[in-house]
């Protein structure tokens, strides 16, 4: 029962991020569906969303960087997905100075997932790289989850 409620909450959160809620483009919808599936797969780990879902478009080899503040003592799961024209989206987490790679996921044909348990509360930079896109630009979506028992975190 608890899992079902959590799944519904996660799905609603993924679906309600866009300003135009009712209708989205087919590619954006693909990304939302994938994020929803990823959220459902994470239910067993008892996660809650730690921030808003970030969505956008990138051409091949282009990247975008987000700034995250992750709290100590918690475990975070960062999930990156992209539309059907994209076959590889990379997530690379750097320290605040952007000179040290903390964790990365460079998946091909599946969602990129980065897990991190920071030792101290600090800011990180998450670089989203569109590695392969068959028809530019490709839609991507990134969601950040925190294990339910962990402390508060924020995203900027």
């Amino acid at each position: 029962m608890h899992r079902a409620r959590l799944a519904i909450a996660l799905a609603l959160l993924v679906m309600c991020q866009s300003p135009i809620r009712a209708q989205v483009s087919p590619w954006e919808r693909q990304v939302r569906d994938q994020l929803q599936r990823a959220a459902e797969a994470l239910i067993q780990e008892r996660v809650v969303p730690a921030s808003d879902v970030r969505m956008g478009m990138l051409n091949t080899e282009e990247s975008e960087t987000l700034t995250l503040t992750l709290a100590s003592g918690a475990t975070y799961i960062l999930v990156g997905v992209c539309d059907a024209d994209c076959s590889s989206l990379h997530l690379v987490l750097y320290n605040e100075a952007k000179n040290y790679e903390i964790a990365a996921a460079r998946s091909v044909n599946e969602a990129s997932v980065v897990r991190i348990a920071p030792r101290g509360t600090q800011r990180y930079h998450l670089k989203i790289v569109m590695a392969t896109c068959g028809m530019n630009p490709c839609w991507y979506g990134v969601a950040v989850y925190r294990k339910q028992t962990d402390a508060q975190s924020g995203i900027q």
Partner: protein
Amino acid sequence: MARELRPWCGGVLLACGVIGLAYLPPRGVTPTRQRGMQAPQPSAARQRAQALALQWRAADRSAQLAEYRQRLRQEIAQHRATGRPGPLLHLGGLDAVPPASRQLLQAALDTVWHQLGLGVSKISVVVVIDWKGATTSTDGPGESAGVVYMFPDSTDRGTCMTLIPGGLWPRRLLAPEIANDARFDWFTLRLEWLRNGLGPCAFYAAYGTPGEPVRRWLAARQYDLARSPDWNASGGDRPLGWPLRSPATETWHWNAVYSLPAAAVTCLAGRANGCRTAVLAGADRGALPSLRQLAPERRWWREERLAQSYRYLSDVAREVGPDRFLRFWNSPLPVDTALAAALRAPVGEWTVRWQRRFAPRLPLGATPPPVAVALGTMLAAIAVVVVALTASRRTVA
């Protein structure tokens, strides 16, 4: 010098002076051959002023397009969200558009979109028509600048915009009363006008934003190879016509031919090397930034780097099919490699074959007419015979 030679030398010098006065242009004017009713070339200062005015008009229209993108942001987002196939049409300008013309325009735009085989596209296309009514002066700043494009950039990766000037010709094309005018095929003319107005934006809608090498190559060439999206055209190729050739008399206009770059001329003559150079010009400019906006010269034929370049990529897409064309369009490989892979042939050889479909081989070098050759040979033979006879009489003594 012998005294009897002096009148001859003087006569030759005088003739040179007369010819010089008659044929040499005044200072500051590009030398050109004047023929018949041809207008004289403007002076260098006037040419410079015209070029500056053209640049100013293009910059003005580009700024106008950027304003439109900002103003239509919400509408574009809604259009994208509704999932309606086809471009978003916006009628700008100061004058009100008659409802009948508006309907004709929307219907024609939908038809063009359908003919191109496009549905809901990843990159939204916005067509802005700067409508001018019959009462508006047509000599405004943007009137002669032609179509202007704004390609997707990092601030909006999903929108390609085109601003089409709507002066006298569009008013005529969209006038409801022309339905009864059987002199021209107005429906086809209307579609052609809109298709060419979509230009490179139709390629963006069909194949997305090109990969970095193709993007830089096309930017360096001002997108001249992608001006006419017509990859689903049926029927034969339209033969090469004005300004290079007269299909009626089947003669070349040599002035126009030799105003093309050398590679384009040798390409018309069927030399694969020339074709390769003409097609790949600009592909090696690594440092050139990608183009965000394009305001092409309205008289495009003046800057053609390849005869009929405006239809080149459209014909490539038609021949190789959408999948292979998409691989080329999106390829990270150098343009020559990617294009040859899509064509499954060397670029030069394919281009020679492509030009033969609509133009005969350009004859380069000496090509005297057969009658002149026969006459010349006969005169030479007579001269030889006369000399031989004279020589034989002398040797008798």
